């Protein structure tokens, strides 16, 4: 698989009639790790959800292209088949469906009919990935996310990421609610995927995740837009100085999307 490119162009998104994203532009190439940072309420998670096609978010303007194909015209499952993945901040709990059945259904859906993964191969891959992420094996037989702790849910998202091997992954606050050990394990899983064919958009409002996953590019979101981009040094400066200097520089008083531009 050749490296993919995800292009987000002038993206405007509403939720329940209220505009949250007000023209986001970003391009992520295979092989690159991008971090999107910013304080709470600036539209970061909306960006992730809109890319994947969450039913509550309405795109009113702009484009999302994956290798030139219009992602926004695709059903959610088609987006996944095209190579997108979103590690969700709040993954759904699905009672009665075991984690392993779900994983196998997902892998088979992506591989397509007639090309299903042999059961033993699946079990081997799942076991290896679970070991790598230090996940208790009984999680395979538990119902999907039901009764999982916050940390277990995050690890389970990364487990899916490792098994589904997307071209471009968006990780929505994958670090929230994780203690330092869990954070290290989750980062280890993400770093393992680094390579020419894998691009990643990491959404976080803590710099600490970036101590373990070094981004190639860092973007800051405020008021529903990307207001500043830079290299890893931008994340370092944010860690040391916070966001105020950016607000000052750009003349922003309230960084949230509540503020009409």
């Amino acid at each position, binding site marked *: 698989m050749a490296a993919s490119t995800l292009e987000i162009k002038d993206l405007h998104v509403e939720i329940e009639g209220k505009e949250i994203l007000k023209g986001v532009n970003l391009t992520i190439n295979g092989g690159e790790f991008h971090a999107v940072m910013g304080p709470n309420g600036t539209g970061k998670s909306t960006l992730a959800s809109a890319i*994947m*096609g*969450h*039913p*509550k978010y309405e795109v009113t303007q702009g484009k999302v292209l994956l290798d030139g194909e219009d992602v926004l015209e695709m*059903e*959610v*499952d088609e*987006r*996944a*088949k095209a190579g997108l*993945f*979103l590690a*969700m901040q709040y*993954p*759904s709990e*699905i*009672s*009665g*469906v075991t984690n392993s*059945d*779900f994983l196998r*259904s*997902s892998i088979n*859906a*992506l591989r397509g009919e007639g090309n299903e993964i042999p059961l033993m191969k699946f079990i081997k891959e799942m076991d290896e990935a679970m070991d790598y992420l230090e996940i208790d094996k009984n999680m395979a037989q538990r*119902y999907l996310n039901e009764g999982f702790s916050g940390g277990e849910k995050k690890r389970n998202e990364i487990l*899916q990421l490792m098994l*589904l091997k997307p071209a471009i992954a968006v990780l929505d606050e994958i670090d929230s609610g994780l203690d330092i050990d869990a954070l290290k394990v989750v980062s280890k899983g993400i770093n393992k995927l680094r390579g020419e064919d894998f691009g990643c958009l990491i959404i976080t409002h803590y710099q600490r995740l970036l101590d373990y996953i070094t981004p190639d590019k860092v973007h800051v979101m405020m008021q529903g837009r990307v207001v500043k981009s830079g290299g890893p040094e931008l994340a370092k400066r944010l860690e040391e100085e916070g966001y105020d200097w950016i607000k000052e520089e750009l003349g922003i008083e309230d960084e949230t999307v509540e503020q009409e531009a």
Partner: protein
Amino acid sequence: MAVETKLPYDKQYVTQFSEGRGEPDWMKNFRLEALEQAENLPMPKPEKTKIDKWNFTNFTHHVSGDKVDSIDELPDEIKAFFNEDKSKNVIIQRNHSVAFSSVSETLTDKGVIFTDIQTALHEHPDLVKKYYMRDAIKVDDNRLTALHAALLNGGVFVYVPKNVVIEDPLQVVFWQEDDEAALYNHVLLVADQGSEVTYVENYISQNTEKQSVANIVTEVVALDQARVSYGAVDNFATGTTTYVNRRGVAYRDAKIEWAIGQMNDGNTISENVTNLMGDNSYAEAKAVSVGRGDQKQNFVANITHFGKFSEGYILQHGVMKDDANSIFSGIGKIEHGAMKSDAQQESRVLMLSQGARGDANPILLIDEDDVTAGHAASVGRVDPVQLYYLMSRGISKAEAERLIIHGFLNPVVEQIPIEAVRKQLTQVIERKVN
């Protein structure tokens, strides 16, 4: 409202029928008294379900079925209920007679009785008499229970002696091969003190055109410290109107666990009542159902606490599609004096179409202060956010819905201890929801 249910089966018929089966006199008299009572008793009054147009009278009462020498001689749809390494403890009832039965010597040596009800009335009349329609259900509960007692034409008797633990499940298939044969079926299961048993039954018919009636009563008596796990899958076809009443009585430290797949395609009244008589007794009533077409169904799950420290847990999950209409009532009742008891319940209905209707009625009736109780109820569509989550991994919308629905009905499927029955139930669900 009185419903006319004049039957072509009178005193003379019942007398001859009982004598023809060589029943003891007490049983004959029991039937005749019940027949007399039936005339004056009211029909059951299921909440919010009108049953006055339902067929309770149009059926044939007695049809026998051919015997077979082995399960392999049966048609595929019946064979499907049995594991490859066939269980040794099996009864297959075909219409109103036994087509096949087998009980392992290990069980008979321990004094376990696992036989059809007619044989039990011959061989163990006193034991049957001691429990039959006494503790768990009364003849005069309503007109249909009285008619049941009068017209009984099939069923199974299970007795597990004191402290006997049966490892493998006992398996019964009630096969209504004849399209018009009514089933007045009675399962009486008595688990004596300290015993343990798992029982699994399937009801099946294929009468999509012809009309018939199923009037089923189950009684489970769990004496002190007994444990009974009872799995059932009801799968009567469109032509059968079903009245099914499963009752349990749990004495001190006893435990009854019900797992019922309510997969009928015809109109159905289903009641499942467990009385927790003894201190520290426990009951779990899990039932799942799928409604389709224009069928109307009414499900009641009731656990009533008399004993102190008793625990009851009700779970009802229903999927409704097409123009199906179902009412689910969960009743947790705690009687005065049942201190430190806990009554919990959950009723959820998933609607798959505009025309479907489903009501969940959680009811807690509590006459004691020192208890805990809780309920959860919901009626709604498949959660779009759950669909989104599954689809975001490449799973198609149809497959995502399928996974969610099967997951929703899984609490009963996973409890069925016989793999073949579990598979068959999954297939029935698959057929019904697609």
